[in-house]
């Protein structure tokens, strides 16, 4: 083999091997960047109470001048800040005009026993009594979201996740002859939360 061919052959080998090395070198010098873990989740609006489907009050044979207190705890666990309103969608009997109703908002220390006992209840200093009147008047003026009773924990203007409020319902029958045998009929209180 003459010198020229030897040189050419050597160059061929070097070139072939150099190409392989070059490919590896380019591979070693490459890099990437990624943006992973993207996700989208909607917020939630969740409200509940501690009645476990038991009536807040079921009172019979009430006499004038005696006030009965019952408490219920409402907890907001949604992730979105919300407005909460209280209303009743069920009509009450005409004689409910002789039943006084006061609704207070506040907190309660300890665990009440039974669940609707008001021992340890403390009314909020800010707007602690959002309603005073008759049961009949409440049932006719707070009937849905639009005219429901807006109540917030403490001095807050909205409900945030994990906010809780204890509502104290105080009822009594008026000391007047027409109030005798007054009966409200079964009625339902509704708490509705809507996100802001």
């Amino acid at each position, binding site marked *: 083999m003459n010198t020229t061919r030897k040189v050419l052959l050597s160059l061929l080998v070097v070139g072939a*091997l150099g190409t392989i090395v070059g490919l590896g070198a380019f591979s070693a010098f490459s890099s990437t960047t990624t943006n992973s873990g993207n996700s989208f989740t909607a917020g939630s609006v969740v409200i509940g109470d501690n009645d476990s489907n038991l009536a807040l009050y079921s009172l019979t044979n009430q006499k004038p001048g005696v006030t009965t207190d019952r408490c219920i705890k409402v907890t907001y666990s949604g992730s979105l800040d919300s407005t909460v309103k209280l209303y009743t969608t069920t009509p009450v009997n005409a004689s409910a005009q002789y039943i006084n109703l006061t609704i207070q908002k506040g907190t309660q220390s300890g665990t009440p026993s039974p669940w*609707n006992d008001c021992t340890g209840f403390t009314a909020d200093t800010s707007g602690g009594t959002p309603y005073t009147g008759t049961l009949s008047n409440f049932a006719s003026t707070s009937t849905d979201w639009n005219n429901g009773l807006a109540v917030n924990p403490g001095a807050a203007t909205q409900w945030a996740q994990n906010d809780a409020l204890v509502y104290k319902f105080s009822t009594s029958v008026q000391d007047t002859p027409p109030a005798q045998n007054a009966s409200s009929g079964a009625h339902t209180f509704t708490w509705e939360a809507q996100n802001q």
Partner: protein
Amino acid sequence: MSSITITKVAGLVLGAVACGFLLVTPRISRPAGVLDASLTLTATPTGELGVAPIGTVLVARHLSPGAEPVRGTLVVSNQTGVPLAVRLRGRPATGDLDDAARLRITTAGRTLFDGHLAALRSGTRMITIRPGGRAPLRIVATLRPQTRSGFEGRTDEVALELLSASTGGPA
């Protein structure tokens, strides 16, 4: 074989070995440190059930295979007037640690859950809490010792959802 031929063959072999060495060695080496996984568990009260603490229950910032387990306690209380059957369900935000992270949840010596984070989506065993009663749930979070990869730098936040139903027992 002539000496020239031997020289040529040797030169070719040496050159090939040198090229092979250059192919292998100049790789970008793995970093010396490995990012640990991070897991956060949270809980919120419902109308029927109170929880303590509210919000963050457990934060495990340095989860890695073989690392010390991270522990937390969630106290669940029955705020109603009836006995409640209660169980927990996990809602991971991303699911990035579904297979790598492992949780064990016990109460009063009874195991409610012991398995992968993914399995917590189906829920734990049930416990009954009497009216006004409380149940402390002990939670232990670890990473599977056999986990070799797929956890580095991953984070997830799992909301512990409380589910309850009246047992129908006496109030």
